[in-house]
């Protein structure tokens, strides 16, 4: 029986080792770095307490990147979720060409963001890009989208919605499939047979938990925006598209300010971990519903 008890740990040993060395240890290390002024490659450092976090609150560039991140999330999440839901409801309302539509909408989710960001860069290019060509067609002048501070973040948000809405769509489709048929029938008997009534009385209330789940998944992805910024704007113009993860990358690996970058990593960790915790709660709830 004793051998039996050890066996569990023997089977788990590689995972336990890897988990400690690659995840738990590094998280503790980042928490520690964030309390110091250590710079990568230097031998000595001093202990700052919460000094880095105070400095973050006074750092104009960081605050701007934080603000941009939230603006980006507030643009991308509602856009992605609304468009994803809209497409999912229409898609599930008839069998005609359903599979083809689903495939077409999901393709952007698969494609490497860095490669597709390059493609979007050419589409937004002021001289050859199709976006400005379309604007000219309608008699407008267009813009230098990625080089103008008033449009750059908006352009990145558009790419964010483009890449994520197919993902939201498939999550909503599985939610829609789980709605019991009797509910539609009951609603119809009660006279709620117009499209709006069905949406309002059956579809949206039943999608509640899925909705929460989709919002959080899309929000975590939006908070982690990095690829499009690195490829297209490098945070510019005038830090107008700088975001949390991009600032973390620049501070830690370009300026080698490990302690300061570590403090940003802690902020990022807290935001994402909180969102994920809420999501876990929602999944628990969903189990009880069905």
């Amino acid at each position, binding site marked *: 029986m004793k051998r039996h008890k050890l066996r569990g740990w023997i089977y788990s040993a590689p995972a336990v080792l890897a988990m400690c060395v*690659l*995840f738990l240890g590094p998280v503790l290390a980042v928490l520690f770095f964030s309390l110091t002024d250590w710079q990568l490659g230097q031998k000595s450092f001093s202990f700052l307490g919460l000094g880095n976090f105070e400095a973050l609150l006074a750092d104009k560039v960081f605050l701007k990147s934080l603000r941009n991140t939230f603006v980006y999330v507030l643009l991308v999440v509602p856009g992605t979720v609304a468009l994803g839901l809209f497409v999912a409801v229409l898609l599930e309302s008839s069998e005609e060409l359903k599979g083809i539509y689903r495939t077409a909408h999901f393709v952007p989710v*698969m494609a490497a963001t860095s490669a597709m960001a390059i493609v979007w860069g050419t589409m937004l290019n002021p001289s050859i890009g199709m976006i400005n060509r379309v604007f000219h067609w309608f008699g407008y002048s267009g813009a230098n989208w990625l080089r103008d501070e008033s449009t750059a973040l908006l352009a990145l948000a558009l790419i964010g919605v483009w890449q994520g809405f197919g993902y939201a769509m498939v999550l909503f489709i599985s939610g829609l499939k789980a709605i019991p048929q009797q509910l539609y029938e009951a609603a119809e008997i009660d006279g709620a047979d117009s499209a709006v009534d069905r949406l309002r009385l059956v579809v949206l209330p039943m999608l509640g938990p899925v909705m929460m789940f989709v919002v959080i998944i899309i929000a975590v992805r939006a908070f982690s925006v990095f690829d499009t910024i690195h490829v297209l704007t490098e945070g510019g113009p005038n830090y107008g598209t700088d975001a949390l993860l991009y600032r973390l990358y620049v501070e830690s690996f370009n300026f080698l300010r490990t302690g300061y970058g570590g403090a940003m990593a802690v902020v990022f960790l807290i935001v994402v971990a909180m969102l994920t915790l809420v999501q876990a709660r929602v999944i628990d709830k969903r189990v009880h519903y069905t």
Partner: protein
Amino acid sequence: MTPLSLGRTGKIVRHAVLITTALFALIPFIWMLSLSIKPESEIFQRSFHLLPSNLSGLNNYAAVFASAPIVRFLFNGVVVCGAIFMLQLLVSIPCAYALAKLRFRGRDTLFAAVLVVLLIPSQVLSIPHFIMLHHASLLDTYGALILPWVFSAFGVFLLRQFFLTIPDELIHAAQLDGMSEAGIIWRIMIPMSGPVIAAFGIFSVVSHWNDLFWPLIALRSMELSTPALGILLFRDEELGRQFGSLMAATTIIVVPLIAFFLMAQRRFIDGLTIR
């Protein structure tokens, strides 16, 4: 019954709207393909045509294949993603088996630790990973791209949940037949978990194939780049400054995953929406 009950006009509107949104999803790909087969002079023309006036633009592809390590990027992607997935399975399966089917002291604590690790976004760990790999002199090698990811909390979690659904009687019967524990994992648990392993594999491969953040930090040399980083380095090369060749290169980079997706759509959608 369906979310909306559509009459004949409703159905036509549905097609009209879905074609529009599908076009929104696909236009960057159409644009990419169109530019990739055009000579540079035509790209700069005032009027836009989907197709080029002649086929000389196909040279873009020839030029990319001839001069850039684009095939090498794809090869690196296969090596790195393949190694990551194999090691993840090797580490996760026994642990998931222990968590699901063995009773031992500390099991709940171990599972709780796995759940905590699930909360950690990987980018947070980049600084310590960088430092460890630096001290191991492994930066700028395949190892640097692979080692940080050999443990997947998500993989352990997923496999454990599935193993729980495999009846204990099956395992007891195998034990009575004299099958070893390793035999049970290899001959019963793994074959029965095909769909879950496939879904996890797609999740793992797609996320590492498309990852830019970590390769950007861990690599210096172009020859080791995975596709997502390689295409960026190509853009800075001389050939990459021409729109036609750049779009040909991005096409070569994104087509393999999309082709696999078209062949196994259900599996891909399952794999990417599994959490």
